[in-house]
C-alpha cells in the first residue's frame, strides 16, 4: 500500500481578476522510502503541490490520502535554510521540539546523534553566520528530522547554493535521507538534480499543471547522486525529460 496518494487533485486560485486553474487532475502515489522528484516549467505550481500535501492548502477538488497517522507526518525543507540568526545551531535544531513541547532527553539524544553523525556536533554552540552554506543546509535538514517526519518535502533546497556546494550537499542530503529511511518529495527545475536523486520523476505541464509523464529511474545501483551523474544512461534520460518539458 502506498504511503501517500493524490487522487484527481485540482486547485483553483482566486484573485480579483478572476479564477486561475493552478492544478488539474493531478494523481500519483508515493511509496514508503521512495524518492520522488517533481519537475515542471517555472510557475506551473510545483510548490503548490507541496503545500497541498502538507495541508497548508486544501484542494478545490480531489483527495489526498495518507496511509499513516503519525503526528509529524510532514517535514518541510526550503530553498533557503531559514535558520534563525539569533539562535545557536543547537537552539535552531530543537525549534520544532520547542514548538511541540517535546523537549526531553530522549529526543535530545536523537538530535545529538544526528549532529554527531553528520559532522555538526562541534558547531552546536555556534551561530548560523559562522557556518558555510552547505553546513547550514545540513543543519536545516536536521532541524526538520528532529521531529521525526515520515515524508520530507524538499522545495528546491539546493538552488540557493553555488554549483560546487550544491553537488556536495546533494550527496549529503541524499545520504541522510537514505540512512534515516525517509520518504522524500523533491520539487526542482533542475533536470539533472532530479535524475541524480530520484527513484521516480513526475513531469508536469505548464499551467494549468497536469501530470504529463512519470519516468521510472533505476540509477540507485550507481551510488551517490554525484556518481549517478556520470553513468551512461544519464544524458539519455536528461534528453528525454528535457523534451517532455519542452513540448
Amino acid at each position, binding site marked *: 500500500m502506498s504511503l501517500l496518494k493524490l487522487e484527481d487533485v485540482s486547485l483553483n486560485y482566486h484573485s480579483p481578476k478572476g479564477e486561475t486553474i493552478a492544478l488539474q487532475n493531478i494523481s500519483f502515489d508515493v511509496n514508503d522510502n521512495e524518492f520522488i522528484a517533481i519537475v515542471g516549467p517555472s510557475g506551473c505550481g510545483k510548490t503548490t503541490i507541496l503545500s497541498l500535501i502538507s495541508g497548508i492548502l486544501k484542494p478545490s477538488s480531489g483527495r489526498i490520502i495518507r496511509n499513516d497517522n503519525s503526528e509529524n507526518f510532514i517535514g518541510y525543507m526550503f530553498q533557503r535554510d531559514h535558520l*534563525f540568526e539569533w539562535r545557536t545551531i543547537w537552539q535552531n535544531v530543537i525549534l520544532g521540539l520547542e*514548538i511541540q513541547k517535546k523537549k526531553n532527553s530522549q529526543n535530545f539524544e536523537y538530535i545529538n546523534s544526528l549532529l554527531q553523525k553528520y559532522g555538526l556536533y562541534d558547531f552546536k554552540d555556534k551561530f548560523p553566520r559562522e557556518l558555510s552554506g552547505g553546513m547550514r543546509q545540513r543543519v536545516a535538514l536536521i532541524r526538520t528530522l528532529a521531529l521525526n517526519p515520515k515524508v520530507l518535502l524538499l522545495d528546491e533546497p539546493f538552488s540557493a547554493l553555488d554549483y560546487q556546494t550544491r553537488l556536495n550537499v546533494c550527496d549529503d542530503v541524499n545520504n541522510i535521507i537514505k540512512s534515516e529511511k525517509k520518504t522524500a518529495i523533491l520539487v526542482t527545475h533542475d533536470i539533472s538534480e532530479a535524475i541524480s536523486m530520484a527513484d521516480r520523476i513526475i513531469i508536469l505541464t505548464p499551467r494549468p499543471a497536469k501530470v504529463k509523464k512519470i519516468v521510472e529511474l533505476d540509477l540507485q545501483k550507481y551510488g551517490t547522486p554525484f556518481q549517478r551523474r556520470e553513468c551512461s544512461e544519464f544524458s539519455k534520460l536528461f534528453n528525454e525529460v528535457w523534451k517532455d518539458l519542452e513540448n
Partner: protein
Amino acid sequence: MKHSKENYSKEHLLYLKKRKNNKIIVLSSQIGLLVFFIFMWELLAKIGAINSFITSSPSKIINTLGELWTSGDLFKHMGVTLFETLAGFFITTILGTLIAIILWWSEMTRKILEPYIVVLNSLPKIALGPLIIIWVGSGTSAIITICVLICIIITIITMLNAFLSCDEDKILLMKSMGASKFTILFKLVLPYSAPNFISMLKINVGMSWVGSIMGEYLSSSAGLGYLIVYGSQVFRLDLVMTSTVLLCILAGLMYFAVALLEKYYNKKHR
C-alpha cells in the same frame, strides 16, 4: 589563515597602526572642532565682533549655570524635562509596539485602520496641542500626552513594517512544525524585528525630545523648554542658550544609552 598576535606580519602591523592612527585623527578633530568653536565664540564676544546680548557667550553660559545651580533650579528644570521625555519615550515604545502587534495579528483590523493611520501620520500633531490641554489639563500630563502623540504613529508604522517584512517561508516553516500564531509571534516575529526595534528606539530618542519641548512651549511652569520660552520673552538669551546646551547634553546621553544597547545586542547576536 589567522595568525596569533605574536606573529603578525609586518604588513598587518602596519595596517593595524594605520587604522589606529585614523581613529586618533577623527577623535582629536572632533574634540578640536568643539574647542575651536567655543574658543571663537568667546573670543568674538569678548572683542565685541558679535553682540553677546543676542548670542550669549560660553562664559556667560557657565555663569548662568552657576546661578541655576545655587538657586537649586538647575536639577529641577532638567529633572522635569527628563521625566517628561522618558515617560513619553517609554509609553510610546510600549504602546506603539503593542498596537503594531495587534495590527500584525489581525489583517482585518489593519485594513480597517489603515486610512486613519495614514491621515494621523501626516497630521501635524502639535495642532492638537490646545485641544489636549483642554482635555487632560495643562502641565505634565498634557506634555506627556503631546509627546506620545508626536512619536506613536511613526512607531506603529515602523514596527508594523518590521513585523510584516518577516519572511513568509519562515512563517510557513513554523506552521509546518505546528506553531500557533502566538508561538510564531514570540519565537520568530519579535526576535526577527529586534534590529528594527533598536533603530526605532533611536528615532524615538529624538522624537520624544521634540515632543516634550513642544509640550512645554504650549503649557508649562518648569523644564528646559519652559526656560527657553521664558528666557526669550524676558530677553535673557543667556538662559535660552544655557537651556539649549543642557538639552544637547541630555539628548546626547540618551542617544548614547540606546547606542550602548545596540552594541550589546550586536555583540550577542551578530
